[in-house]
């Protein structure tokens, strides 16, 4: 979404920049456009706050996933199945 050269951007454009900001640095002009828009738009302010919250929540979730060891064990049946297929491979 190209917003270059505009002073006023729409909510559609503002939310796009807010999303993009989660992964990438915005250009100076984009940051300015977004700031100005947020001053005037309650809904986009909420959107921004909520997207940032989701990013933080996902960050916590990822940390949990990384730290997680073995919580679920393979069943005996699953293991048997896997071993069987490995044996089949060896014999072929």
């Amino acid at each position, binding site marked *: 979404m190209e917003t270059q050269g505009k002073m006023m951007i729409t909510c*559609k454009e503002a939310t796009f920049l807010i999303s993009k900001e989660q*992964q990438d640095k915005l250009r100076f002009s984009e940051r300015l456009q977004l700031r100005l828009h947020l001053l005037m738009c309650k809904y986009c302010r*909420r959107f921004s706050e909520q997207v940032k919250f989701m990013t933080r929540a996902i960050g916590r979730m990822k940390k949990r996933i990384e730290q*997680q060891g073995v919580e679920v064990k393979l069943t005996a049946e699953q293991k048997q199945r896997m071993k069987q297929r490995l044996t089949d491979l060896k014999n072929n």
Partner: protein
Amino acid sequence: MPEINPDNWVEDHGDYLYNYALVRVGRPEVAEDLVQETFLAGIKALASFEHKSSVQTWLVAILKRKIIDYYRKKSTVREEVHVEERFGPYGNMQDHWVEKHAPAQWQLNSDELLENDELKKILQACIRHLPGKWASCFILRVMEELKGDVVCKELNISPSNMWVMLHRARLQLRDCLEKGWFNQ
């Protein structure tokens, strides 16, 4: 150099790899398949194992590749995607929030909320319910933290395509979380 015996892989590494896959793909039957494929690929590539890392680390690296492949395939599945029209189509309000789709107030006043397990579960479910293309893009870029250009290459999309998909994914995740948690 110690002999590597794949006969013990299922017992020695099965549970660990299964957990690794399960939290990343969410479906037990898919996780099992990916682990199985990892073992098979490992046996075929055994000659290239250089003993620089442990066998488990090496198997995890293979599994990671399998997980990317899984999402790459998932992103190519054709499906009808309904794009919610959240912004006004014409007039003064063109491209501005339509009142009934606009973000509601969320109670975000405590950091404890971030640790809430129920909320995490809902968020995870919301991510899994994204359309395949968006989910693949979002999971590889945001959850697995692959670099942008790598995601584009894997999913065969342009950078601007990726940005649009990530954005649509976030719009939908926000809606989903609002419905599932904040508006109960």
